[in-house]
């Protein structure tokens, strides 16, 4: 693809991520922070999030399967995860987290389990989309220097 085309793609993909509700304002904040000192800042942050969230997800899973269910602990784990996902502006993921916490407060383990599945799914979907986006951006950037 030629440079202009690539860049158009990047713009389009980026826009759709926002329009479709995958990302929110926080992501733009990260983009604003990116500068010459940290040219790949956004990508680094996203990478950091995904690597850390694996651990958090595991914590939640453990809390979900342990019996008797400790909703307090479950809520704490989810609170942590939610805080983390808010760092990159993962909108859909965050919404599911809120839903999860509601079920948690209500003591509804079934609801929690179901919602958690959703969370994992959204989490994975976003990851792919972002990876795709960053790759495209890199290509467009490279094309520019070519």
């Amino acid at each position, binding site marked *: 693809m030629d440079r202009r085309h690539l860049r158009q793609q990047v713009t389009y993909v980026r826009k759709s991520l926002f329009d479709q509700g995958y990302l929110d304002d*926080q992501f733009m*904040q990260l983009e604003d922070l990116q500068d010459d000192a940290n040219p790949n800042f956004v990508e680094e*942050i996203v990478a950091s999030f995904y690597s850390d969230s694996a651990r958090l997800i595991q914590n939640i899973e453990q809390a979900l399967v342990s019996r008797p269910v400790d909703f307090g602990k479950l809520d*704490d784990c989810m609170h*942590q995860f939610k*805080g983390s996902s808010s760092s990159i502006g993962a909108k859909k993921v965050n919404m599911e987290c809120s839903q999860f916490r509601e079920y948690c407060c209500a003591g509804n383990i079934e609801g929690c389990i179901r919602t958690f599945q959703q969370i994992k799914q959204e989490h994975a979907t976003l990851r792919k989309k972002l990876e795709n986006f960053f790759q495209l951006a890199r290509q467009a950037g490279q094309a520019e220097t070519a």
Partner: protein
Amino acid sequence: MMDNGFSSPRKDAFPVGLRVLVVDDDPTWLKILEKMLRKCSYEVTTCGLARDALHLLRERKDGYDIVISDVNMPDMDGFKLLEHVGLEMDLPVIMMSVDGETSQVMKGVQHGACDYLLKPIRMKELRNIWQHVLRKKINEVRDIEILEGMESIQMARNGLDQSNDGHLLCGEDLTSVKKRKDVESKHDDKDPGDNSSTKKARVVWSVDLHQKFVEAVNQIGFDKVGPKKILDLMNVPWLTRENVASHLQKYRLYLSRLQKENDTKISVGGIKHSDSPLGDSANSFGTQNSINIQQNDVSSRSCGFSGNSLLVQNVEPRSHDNDRKGIVSKIVAEPKRALTVEVPDPHKPRSSQMEFGHSLTSSASEVNYAEYDSNFPTKFSWWEIPQSRLKQEQKPLHLDDGFSHLTWPGKQQHIQVDYPQPAPPIISGSSVTGRGMGGSVKIKPLYDECRKNGSQVSSTESTIEASHVQTKTYKVNHQTFEPISTNTSSLKNQASNLRCISDLESAQKNINWGMSPFATLDDDFQVRWVQGDCYAMNLGLENIDFPEYFDRGLLADVPTHLYDAVSFDYQNLYDPTECSLIEQGLFIA
């Protein structure tokens, strides 16, 4: 980038280089916050664990200006960390969380957080954090003064037998007034009717209450002391652990200052000398040691009080007489800093005023910071001076000097109060009372009082709880200008008594300075500012010719005078034009 926060306070334009310690167990957030803060030109140190953070802080007590911490930490509750930092280091702490539940936020505020940010955090929220640092410095000075004031009062009550009629008289008057106030304020305290969301009852630290506190502390043993133990010993049913905790914090600060003061005093031979570097004449304000003392470290230096170039030079008005020195607060005129002083608003004027003062001081402090030590211990002289001076002269001058570090002769009240002893000049806030202003300045003696007393500026007497000082709610209060007559300001700080005197004087002068410190730049600031500003303000005024003030029978009829004047001025609070006027006047030097 500098090393990890172990640098000395920057001398550049505040708030550049503000040393921030960020504590968060989430590595992603830590990276983001670090980047954001760096973009604000702050110096950032990050920490993933609360205990690491405490370790860093303890290692270098002066290494940081502000701490930002997440509420949920794995190894320690964020609120606990908050308390530790507040008690041990007395740094402003900002809490963060994804959770915005009112109860959580309230808890944060109650534990002394100066702000509570919700994640995701925006850059602009971080840009403003320096205001908390500044505010805290200002309040700190005030608190110290108040404490000193209280102690002085206590001492005075304990048998001063000054032959000074004026003193005695004043003291008694004050005492009785204070007592009345205490009663009133106590009742008021119990009533949380302030607009703060926390609705915490405010505690008025009356002399008696403080006495109980000190007794409890001495009984337990200063090293082993803790809020809970003190609370139990004091046996005051309506007092909470938090109240005691924050008061303890201030007390510690106060003692450490006293300590330093004594040390310097010994070495320096008492600042009071007329040959103090400051130069006797008030005109020499500036510079020296500007009282900023406490604030000096305020990075706020340039607080930028809006343009007023207040150069509050607090410097001791003393210029007339000998050795006032002490206080020289130099208010550096920072004026154009944009602190955001918003003075103009009558409701808020105070704060703006204060700001001026502060800014001045801050700038001064900045400067002083470095030279402070070298100049002379005079920092402390604020208090010292008054004492000795008082006796001799009874002149209002003393008042000023001693107390207000900041500058406003208002503090002079202390003097009257009978300080017979060199006991720490009750600086309580009023010292600055712009008495010195010579009229043009409306000094706000009130400030002084306000400040500490809880900045209780608000006429409502709401006594601000000591701990509140840190919080926004602080502003709610007291603008205490009232102090004068009534000591309404709750005495939280006995100082108000003192202030009364000074206030009177200032009142006479028309303090209107508007310094209502309370005006505060923004909500948060309000409270804080008040205190800080006063100081600054006063300073400037002092130097201006006092004679007029003093004549007014400072001591004796001050109370009424002040009262009226104060209240009157109170209304006016801040008038921007006045400020400039004052400014000019102040800057005699």
